[in-house]
């Protein structure tokens, strides 16, 4: 402290003598050092006061008293500053923890894409923040069925991630490869309704493809409708299915519907991060997506997903504002 005070006094004396910009610049650099050494504002004023008194012994007592007053009132500034510093450190710790949590979430929610000759499958899921609020779960335990759940937790960040893990284990435990979509939705609804806070809702689209009969059966809990491209007509059909969001009420019944997939047909399942464009109505965005899919229809399912992401990102001027998830089943 003595050494710092001597340095400060020298810099101050130089400035008072010649008042150059150079002196001021040196002064600011010196203060930077003091801040790094955690010298508090009240200490700096005290250093200033002592330096002034040493340089000008004839300084009026009123000025010295003025400095004392300033030291006194600056104690609170010093405290606030130190509190901010400690909160910043705390924030950094949280950031690190968050990164670890995101890694764990990614590991937990890994889903293996089924390998089957019956279908060409593509999948993309890009989170907007660290923790993904969308989740895709594939089930393919035997050669007869390929199933997929596309899930969107309403709400973001850590609470959504915790809820997601529950959905995943719900699906895991019940091995739903052969489960009817309506049954899967009903069971998950019960699990979520019982265990999750009232403010948390989950939307889900569940589809099951019967490899032998080429039948796609689907049900939805308040989720975005999927799109079915019928190659024979060259047109898209919306696969809508009315159903309440998961977790709102116990004992909800869900309906299910069937479509047949013919050669060249494909089904596109997505979350609202894909269909909700800023400044455009839902109708417009559907048209944009259908036009885009028509251009991409001869690519592999995986390439279609990736191109769709790139093109829609461009369209929204690189500012997607929600998690983005697409799954494509292509015959």
């Amino acid at each position, binding site marked *: 402290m003595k050494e710092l005070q001597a340095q400060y006094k020298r810099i101050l004396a130089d400035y008072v003598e010649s008042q150059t910009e150079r002196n001021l610049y040196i002064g600011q650099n010196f203060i930077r050092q003091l801040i790094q050494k955690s010298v508090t504002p*009240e*200490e700096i004023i*005290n250093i200033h*006061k002592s330096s002034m008194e040493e340089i000008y012994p004839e300084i009026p007592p009123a000025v010295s008293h003025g400095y*004392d007053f300033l*030291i*006194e009132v600056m*104690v*609170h500034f010093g*405290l*606030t500053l*130190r*509190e901010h510093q*400690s*909160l910043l450190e*705390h924030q950094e710790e949280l950031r690190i923890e968050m990164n670890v949590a995101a890694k764990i979430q990614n590991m937990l929610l890994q889903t293996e894409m089924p390998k089957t000759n019956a279908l060409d499958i593509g999948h993309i899921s890009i989170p907007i923040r660290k923790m993904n609020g969308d989740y895709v779960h594939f089930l393919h335990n035997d050669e007869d069925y390929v199933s997929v759940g596309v899930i969107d937790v309403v709400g973001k960040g850590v609470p959504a991630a915790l809820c997601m893990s529950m959905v995943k284990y719900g699906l895991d435990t019940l091995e739903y490869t052969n489960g009817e979509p309506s049954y899967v939705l009903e069971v998950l609804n019960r699990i979520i309704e019982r265990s999750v806070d009232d403010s948390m809702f989950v939307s889900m689209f569940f589809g099951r493809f019967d490899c032998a009969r080429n039948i796609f059966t689907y049900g939805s809990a308040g989720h975005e409708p999927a799109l079915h491209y019928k190659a024979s007509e060259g047109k898209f059909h919306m696969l809508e299915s009315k159903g309440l969001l998961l977790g709102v009420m116990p004992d909800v019944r869900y309906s299910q519907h069937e479509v047949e997939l013919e050669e060249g047909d494909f089904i596109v399942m997505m979350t609202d991060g894909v269909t909700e464009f800023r400044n455009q109505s839902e109708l417009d965005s559907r048209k944009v997506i259908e036009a885009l899919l028509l251009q991409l229809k001869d690519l592999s399912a995986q390439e279609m997903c990736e191109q769709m992401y790139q093109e829609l990102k461009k369209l929204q001027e690189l500012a997607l504002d929600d998690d983005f998830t697409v799954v494509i089943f292509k015959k």
Partner: protein
Amino acid sequence: MSKKTVVDIVTEWDIVAARQLGRNITKELGFDTVNQARITTAISELARNIYLYARAGEIEIEKVDTEDKKGMIIIARDKGPGIEDVHKVMEDGYSTSGGLGAGLPGVKRLMDHIELKTSIDKGTVIRVEKWL
């Protein structure tokens, strides 16, 4: 030599009396200007807490001036509602966010040592020390 003095805290002006007593002792012991300001601020915060939250209580200031130890021990006692979550009041961002002053984390930073005993509906005793 060790000497204790007590100031009752009932009105806001009693906070000033506690500060004055503390200030005199910091000067007698030879604390520098910055530490005078810090100790007095700590006393002020403790007294203010009593005045605002416990209605009534006291501040005891002990001046320790012996061969091997010089400093001050300040004890704030009240029969107020007590503190429910002790860990929380010692956390940054808790007390100052309500604009109530430096709070206990601030007092802790200003002093060398702090101890807190509290019991719901019976009151709180906070002991802080500062050594020269």
